[in-house]
């Protein structure tokens, strides 16, 4: 099977931070969410996939094209939507599209104006006069107009109002409807993952904690609540726990051994996964 995105043992060393052995694949027609706390390496990974950072070691392939050896083809398949606007702010959306469309073989200017109209982006207004949400929409319109196969989005919904966030999710769904496109997006808003992601990759301090489908994630783990003694009985399955004055809560592997121990068992939320997977002292939190 040809993957849209293949990230193989990617390492990137920065001054005070490093991305270590990131390895995952994304099939066509799916959405993958990158989650992790601030500073976990989401943006570094996205910048590495976009080619803004040169990876220290490893490989990135986009639609089978190696980002190093076949950079222009690989980047030709990329559509990008970034939290920090990479386009020229002094120019209008239309002028930006004119300048940057010349690098893309399949850029369709009519399609771009249609998307601008659909997303309510005034193509003649300078980017610096547009709201953050509208700039995101412009970036989306640009990405959709050159028939990108992989959309890479860095926190596309951060700082946006809930109405636009919902609209963005719908646009993301629409974008992959044809089945030959995929989306990789980073976020720390867990509801986005709940709404649209098919796969989830959790990063913590530059390391890949887990990459799996959302269904498998929810199937494989449970949150259990009970007394300290009861939770202790589940110890081999415990990923992490937090202690409150009234009970102990733990994320455990969903195994038969957790049943009939007198604990309350719940299906975890994405926020639970982020909490238990993305903390330094995963074993125990004490709330006083």
């Amino acid at each position, binding site marked *: 099977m040809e993957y849209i995105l293949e990230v193989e043992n990617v390492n990137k060393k*920065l*001054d005070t931070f490093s991305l270590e052995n990131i390895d995952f694949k994304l099939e066509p027609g799916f959405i993958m969410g990158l989650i992790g706390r601030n500073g976990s390496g989401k943006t570094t990974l996205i*910048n590495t996939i*976009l*080619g*803004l*950072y*040169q990876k220290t070691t490893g490989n990135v392939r986009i639609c089978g094209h190696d980002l190093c050896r*076949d*950079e*222009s*083809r*690989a*980047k*030709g398949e*990329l559509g*990008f939507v970034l939290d*920090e606007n*990479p*386009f*020229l702010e*002094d*120019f209008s959306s239309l*002028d930006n599209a*004119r*300048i*940057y469309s*010349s*690098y*893309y073989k399949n850029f369709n200017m009519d399609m771009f104006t249609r998307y601008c109209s659909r997303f309510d982006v005034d193509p003649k207004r300078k980017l610096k006069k547009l709201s953050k949400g509208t700039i995101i929409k412009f970036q989306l319109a640009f990405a959709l107009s050159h028939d990108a196969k992989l959309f890479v989005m860095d926190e596309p919904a951060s700082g946006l109002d809930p109405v636009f966030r919902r609209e963005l999710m719908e646009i993301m769904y629409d974008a992959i409807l044809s089945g030959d496109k995929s989306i990789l997006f980073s976020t720390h808003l867990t509801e986005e993952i709940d709404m649209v992601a098919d796969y989830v990759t959790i990063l913590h301090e530059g390391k890949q904690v887990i990459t799996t489908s959302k269904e498998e994630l929810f199937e494989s783990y449970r949150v259990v609540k009970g007394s300290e003694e009861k939770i202790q009985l589940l110890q081999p399955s415990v990923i992490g726990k937090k202690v409150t004055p009234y009970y102990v809560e733990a994320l455990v592997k969903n195994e038969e051994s957790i049943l009939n121990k007198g604990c309350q068992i719940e299906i975890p939320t994405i926020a639970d996964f982020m909490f238990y997977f993305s903390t330094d002292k995963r074993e125990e939190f004490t709330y006083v």
Partner: protein
Amino acid sequence: MSNKDLRKALLIRYGVCFKNRWYNVFLIIIYFGLSILEEIRFMNVKEGSSYIIPAGVFAIVGVVAILAVEITRHEKCQYIVPLSYEERKRYYLIGVLFNFTFMLLMCLLFMGITIAINKEYGMAVIKVFAIMGLPYSIVASFQKINMFKGKKKKDNPKGVYVSYVIGVVVGILASVLLFQIGYLFEHPLYMKLTAVLLNVLSLGRAIYAILEIINRDTDYENVKVNQLKVLKKLM
């Protein structure tokens, strides 16, 4: 992308930049007009300084340079669009060539007009062009291209720091030189020496810039970090 496609992309960019900075045309016309009028007035009444005319040449070149260097602006998008490292290098080098040609044409046009009005002053303009116009055009063509060089983050950005300081110092010296240009006209030997020195320096700078483009990596983040470090120090 072929060189033809890259040239086309550059021309589109020039067109869009020019459309957005069209008011600069007025500045160019005003500089041209004032310089020519000043020259005619000087020829008629033989008062004032004829060297205001050459100063006008470089004011024009300056305005054109602002327009032209748009093309080689260091920006994030340039690293994301589908250009390979080699293509990006070619793109910037073609941009430099465009910038230089553009500025040279403007200077030649002004020199031509001056010679047509009065040969003697035309020659004065050519001399000033040799002293300052040519080196300035060369360095201005590469001004933004410097930002392309991506030094490794672990490297000390001293080179970039020194480059900024030299740029400022040379800018001040150039202004002083322009005001003292009358002195150079009275001492032709000094004039020739200054012309040779400045041209050699600017050529050296151009060669260094080309080598930087060819040899350095293009890690956007490294370029940006170095620029910021230097700017912070200078602030």
